[in-house]
């Protein structure tokens, strides 16, 4: 592929360790025409709030935004499944002319009567502000009439990046926190933030903490319930995973309710252990918590490491490319891949910040390429250049890998296999092992120029 495919304006968002000196530019709006892998503000809000299972999620706008996000995440619920339905005000031309407020109000009243939700999130999409709808006003009116929280989410697609959507979602959640009773909350209690219960991952994590004697007040937002969120201010600590999305909420809760937070990750042995130990350290006054954590981690690692080690023999020396939404996940993946002897040759994120990229620079081996807000032409070029055997990403990265004959692991929000926790690590290694070791790749043109399209 020719050099011309790299856009000059993006040069500073690409960095090769050991070769380049510049600071990685990030936190930028996507460049027009660059074919970014990012979505928009609405997407950020939608993915964060989506797992709240007993809330009504109404998307105010033309039909596309709701249609493309119907049942989009693998977030499981142990009870209600209202989150898996797609509701849209489906604005038409005449609504654009005359305004969509009446339709919004009518939709809300109809849906609340039918589904009896604990709260409603109203997502404003691109044109809502432009046609002048007073979403907040309608929400207030309906909230009073139906006596449930009806919360506007300011998620107009163009008003920033996906990160701004996370912030809007945090604002929406924050408006609920503090409105429930905390009288029955036990002293050893935490909130888990930024865990979305993909394939039941939140249940795995909850089990670990509970074994340590820790109580979970709320999980935001995996298997989420409005009533739990309302009493989240009663917890002693916020444990924040996916910090890219949930830090604004953790900071707001610290400021208003004095609840400290720690950043954790549940991917890989190292980070999973730290996530448990950090919480144990926080409750160090309480006897036995740390010991329980130690027992748990030792038992779990012993249980799964045997299997991982065997698969690791096959994976040793293979090369991996990682392109994910948040950079914090990338840190964990680098460590997890190292555990099985794999080297990360390309790593990038859609929404990493300066600090994140500093950490990545330190973590990576010389020669590794680091990218911010990348696109298919860059990613495909770098995975080929670096001779990657595995690509870890989401739906939009999958065909890039598979077309070129590279193994793939979906680590995005659509995954159906739990990758968090100790058993998640086992699943993760199984996933990459079964893709990298598949016999099908030998037929691919990169290994065998005679077949396929050269």
């Amino acid at each position, binding site marked *: 592929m020719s050099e011309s495919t790299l856009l000059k*304006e993006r040069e500073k968002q690409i960095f090769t360790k050991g070769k380049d000196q510049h600071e990685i530019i990030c936190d930028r709006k996507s460049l027009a025409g*660059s074919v970014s892998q990012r979505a928009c*503000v609405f997407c950020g809000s939608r993915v964060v709030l989506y797992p709240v299972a007993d809330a009504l999620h109404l998307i105010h706008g033309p039909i*596309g935004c709701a249609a493309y996000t119907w049942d989009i995440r693998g977030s499981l619920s142990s009870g209600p499944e209202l989150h898996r339905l797609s509701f849209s005000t489906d604005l038409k031309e005449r609504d654009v002319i005359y305004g969509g407020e009446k339709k919004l109000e009518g939709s809300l009243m109809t849906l609340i009567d039918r589904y009896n939700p604990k709260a409603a999130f109203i997502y404003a999409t*691109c044109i809502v502000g432009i046609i002048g709808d007073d979403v907040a006003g309608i929400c207030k009116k309906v909230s009073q009439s139906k006596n449930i929280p009806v919360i506007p989410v300011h998620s107009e697609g163009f008003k920033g990046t996906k990160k701004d959507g996370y912030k809007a979602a945090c604002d929406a959640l924050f408006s609920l926190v503090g409105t429930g009773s905390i009288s029955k909350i036990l002293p050893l209690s935490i909130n888990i933030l930024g865990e979305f219960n993909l394939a039941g991952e939140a249940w795995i994590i909850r089990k670990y903490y509970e074994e340590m004697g820790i109580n979970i007040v709320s999980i935001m937002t995996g298997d989420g319930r409005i009533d739990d969120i309302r009493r989240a201010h009663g917890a002693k600590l916020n444990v924040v995973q996916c910090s890219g999305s949930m830090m604004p909420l953790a900071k707001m809760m610290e400021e208003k309710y004095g609840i400290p937070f720690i950043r954790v990750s549940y991917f890989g042995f190292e980070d999973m252990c730290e996530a448990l130990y950090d919480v144990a350290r926080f409750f160090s006054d309480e006897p036995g918590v740390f010991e329980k954590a130690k027992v748990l981690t030792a038992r779990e690692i012993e249980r799964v490491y045997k299997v991982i080690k065997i698969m690791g023999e096959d994976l040793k020396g293979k090369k991996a490319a990682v392109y994910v939404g948040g950079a914090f996940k990338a840190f964990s993946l680098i460590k997890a891949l190292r555990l099985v002897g794999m080297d990360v040759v390309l790593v990038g994120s859609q929404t990493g910040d300066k600090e994140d990229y500093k950490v990545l620079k330190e973590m990576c081996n010389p020669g590794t390429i680091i990218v911010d807000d990348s696109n298919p032409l860059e990613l495909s070029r770098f995975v080929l250049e670096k001779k990657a055997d595995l690509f870890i990403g989401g739906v939009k990265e999958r065909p890039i890998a598979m077309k070129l004959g590279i193994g793939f692991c979906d680590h995005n929000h659509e995954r159906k296999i739990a990758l968090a926790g100790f058993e998640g690590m086992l699943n993760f290694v199984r996933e990459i092992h079964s893709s990298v070791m598949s016999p099908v790749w030998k*037929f691919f043109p990169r290994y065998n120029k005679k077949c396929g399209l050269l």
Partner: protein
Amino acid sequence: MKIVTQNACQLCAPLGASLVFKGIKNCVPLLHGSQGCATYIRRYLISHFREPIDIASSSFTEETAVFGGEKNLRQGLDNVIRQYEPDVVGIASTCLSETIGDNVPSILKEWLKDRSVESSIRVPELVQVSTPSYSGSHSTGFHQTVLALTSTFAGTFTEKEESCDSHDLNLFPGMISTEDIRNLKYWLGLYGIKGMILPDYSESLDGPAWYDYQKIPGGGCPVESIKVSSRAKLSLELSGTLDDDESSAFWLFRNKGVQAYSLPQPIGIDLSDLFFSRLSDLSGRDLPDILAAQRGRLLDAYADAHKYLYGRKAVVFGEKDHVLALSVFLEEIGIIPVLCATGEGKGLKSAMDTCLKKPEEVEVLDYSDFDEIEKRAAALSCDLAVGNSKGYKLSKSLGIPLIRTGFPVHDRIGAQRLSCLGYSGTQLLFDRIVNTVMEEQQNSSPVGYTYI
């Protein structure tokens, strides 16, 4: 119309536009709006076709929304051209750019003027279409984009293009699978007809493994062919539900005097006979032996399987064009399409009244959604669902099997290769339907029959 849409049975217009542009040779789609539109649509299409699908965006910001999208569109065009070196850029608007009132044609005109002075950038052909998602569906966007391509390029050929690229038939297939597009090409070959298929994403969205990343995957309808489409003898449009002013075939008839026919998608014997008879008329050849043999085998299979199907009650859903042809086919094999639904606007009912033998047995829902479809399907005791994979929820909760066809199919491999057109495609669809029914009967019997 409903106050709220629950589980939509449609997508938005820019998706249809993107799909059509992927079927133009060496073309990159560029959506003029928020970054999310392009990314969501990519994700949705990728999950169906399982191919890399690059769609550019002019990536609106707050500033763009206030001051207009000119700067972003120009920058988007420049970057797409620098990265992809396309022959054509297809620009589709979105609800955002339409609502703020961007005048895309005039922005493009200005850009072209400036670019013709600066020689550093190779200027591709530009075509633009207005596809706000508040008006129509993905299917509307699809047809509008075909019409935009036709009305932009037809008749603008050079002498060389006229001599090299002219053809006899303009074939507008509508939204069909990549496999069925390949079949159409094969059939034209059997008849010896030189034809243009617009759009043709049969290779670009169902290609082989690659050695290197293909910036723009091969295949696609060449713009040169669209230019000379005004010289063709006949236009065939596979729809049956379009108004004249939405139809590219009729546009060519009105403006260029090319004879035009609109037929439903050729699913089943009746509709396939109709389609192939048009090809016979055009070419002066009888039904080729290969197709006659396929027709014979299909008919033979109809006899073998008829008892399993008679009187079954199906719910059919999806795009109007597909629902129309499917229901005609189901009626032909003895299944009553008791409920035919689309998320799109009107047009289905009148087409069904014309095409079905017993339209009185059929309830048609337009502007519908899966919530309503599920309710009505339960009330009508449907025992078979035929349509795209978004009907899975309905099929699961009603406990009736779903035969996947159309777009999207997000929960199976091989959606690109699902064929249902012509005698051969009908045969495949027919076998799938019958075997679904037989499997259900086998599984529900405690005996465990090994002969059925």
